[in-house]
């Protein structure tokens, strides 16, 4: 399979700060790569270089066979970009926004209008299409921004944190839309802070920190690497910890961790809720009294703790993700009037 996106040794500085530090990346044609990392890891910088908005200080990248610096203009016909800022013109209607983008892709008047209507329909914005986007909700804006990226039916799509700042319902509907696109064979590079999102949408995941890829693989490979899910129990009586361990360890995939002081026991597992139910039966049968119980899925924090030894805390000064704008969008978001 040929690679639609290849990046080699990308370096980008912002003054003193090194946003990208020799980043290598490959995305096979027709697949989805999830670029996973915390704020400031270099995700946005990477997308901006690959989508021709920024020039790298060193290294090179080709997208669809075009060099991102030398063939920038030719490449722009083949890519769609949807950023985390929801870059729609708030004084235009949804339709006008898409029509304008179509004209700037030089689709011509008729085709631009037709495409605008198709996309409004596809992203469930038909009803809102003739309203000014200022009144759109955060989720609607994101969908419109995504629609703008799809106007020219680009074979390669970059989505930069498409669901950051969205409420859970909007997030799930966004996922459905993106999953639908991918089935159509589009090559997609998606950045996200959420493991769950990468898990759901991406064929492969690259974990990025301090401007380099520190781990990559399929979702399962990566989860294996970071330990996957854990069952956690808090017992009523610390004396029963030994009995409890004997019950649950056979169900798990690794050693149990016991904390006498907090009467806690945890064990790595695969299989989710089904394993939890089995464990509860076994513990009940053994007469172990429980105070609390839970199935903990790995979070980005776990990935980071495991892979880098440091937590995935936010680093504001080196932040290349314009977090302020996101916050602004979030706070000014209004529910679109029916």
């Amino acid at each position, binding site marked *: 399979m040929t690679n639609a996106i290849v990046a080699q040794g990308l370096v980008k500085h912002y003054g003193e700060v090194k946003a990208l530090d020799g980043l290598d990346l490959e995305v096979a044609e027709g697949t989805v790569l999830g670029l996973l990392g915390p704020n400031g890891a270099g995700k946005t910088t990477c997308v901006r270089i690959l989508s021709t*908005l920024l020039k790298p200080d060193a290294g090179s990248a080709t997208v669809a066979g075009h060099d991102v610096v030398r063939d920038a203009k030719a490449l*722009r*016909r083949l890519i769609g970009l949807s950023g985390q800022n929801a870059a*729609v013109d708030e004084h*235009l209607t949804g339709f006008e926004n898409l029509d304008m983008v179509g004209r*700037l*892709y*030089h689709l011509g008047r008729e085709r631009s209008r037709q495409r605008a209507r198709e996309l409004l329909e596809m992203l469930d914005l038909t009803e809102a299409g003739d309203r000014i986007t200022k009144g759109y909700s955060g989720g609607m804006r994101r969908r419109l921004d995504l629609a*703008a990226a799809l106007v020219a039916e680009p074979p390669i799509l970059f989505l930069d944190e498409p669901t950051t700042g969205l409420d859970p319902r909007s997030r799930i509907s966004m996922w459905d839309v993106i999953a639908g696109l991918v089935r159509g064979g589009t090559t997609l590079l998606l950045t996200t802070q959420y493991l769950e999102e990468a898990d759901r949408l991406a064929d492969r995941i690259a974990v990025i920190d301090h401007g380099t890829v520190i781990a990559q693989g399929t979702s399962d490979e990566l989860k294996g690497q970071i330990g996957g899910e854990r069952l956690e129990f808090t017992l009523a009586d610390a004396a029963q910890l030994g009995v409890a361990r004997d019950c649950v360890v056979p169900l798990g995939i690794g050693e149990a961790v016991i904390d006498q002081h907090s009467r806690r026991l945890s064990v790595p597992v695969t299989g989710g809720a089904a394993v939890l139910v089995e464990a509860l039966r076994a513990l009940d049968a053994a007469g172990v009294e429980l105070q609390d119980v839970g199935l903990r899925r790995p979070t980005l924090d776990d990935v980071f703790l495991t892979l880098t030894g440091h937590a995935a805390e936010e680093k504001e000064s080196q932040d290349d993700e314009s977090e302020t*704008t996101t916050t602004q969008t979030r706070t000014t978001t209004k529910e679109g009037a029916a």
Partner: protein
Amino acid sequence: MNALLEAAADTAVITKRNLIKIKRVPDLLVFTTLQPIMFVLLFAYVFGSAIDVPGVGYREFLIAGIFAQTVVFGSTFTGYSLAQDLQKGVIDRFRSLPMAPSAVLFGRTLSDVLNNVISLIVMALTGLVVGWRIRSSVLEALVGFALVLLFAYAISWVMAYVGLLVRSPEIVNNASFIVIFPLTFIANTFVPTNNLPGPLKAFADWNPVSAVTQAARELFGNTSAALPPPDVWSMQHPVPYTLIWVVLILAIFIPLSIRQYQRAASR
């Protein structure tokens, strides 16, 4: 498609987008029109009561100066709007499209000409009410208006560069205020420069704002033998001197702004 035609088509698309915004945010238009009315009235009646301009009377003297000052201030809107587009990520969207890089800037500066046309019409009408008259021919007067607009267009490109450089609409406004205020006041806009202290007079006489003002005054017929222009080349030949500035500014700031646009990133 020919690259130039393509750029023109892209410019038209962007211009249309900007004009829609004028229509959708009528507050903008209200201020575009109210402010010049206020200026004309304030200067005509407050300063006018204290300043005696020989030959033409203060109100006739004043109008060309107010025209020049208002359109120069109006040009900050170009920088303000671009900084705003940059901040909101709209420029990122444009830059990811296969459009001509110059189109966003030409579209912006061209649609901002409309703002200035509206201001000029409103100011001219207010001027006529308070006693301003065109004493030359219609053609000369139109050339006068065109020259003021052309000068404003050039300043617009300076502001475009500033807007793309500083990236914050608020800073564009505040920073340009600091520059534009002295530039439009240390000039012949509101008072004759004859009695200014030496260095200020020299600055005022070579100030391009003075030149466009003097040119407009002459083209409107608002000059008098009782108040001859200062005996320096710039004031004796205000039209060519203004045009030199226009060409110079455009030659520098069009390429500079386009280059800055291509680098600009909202971060």
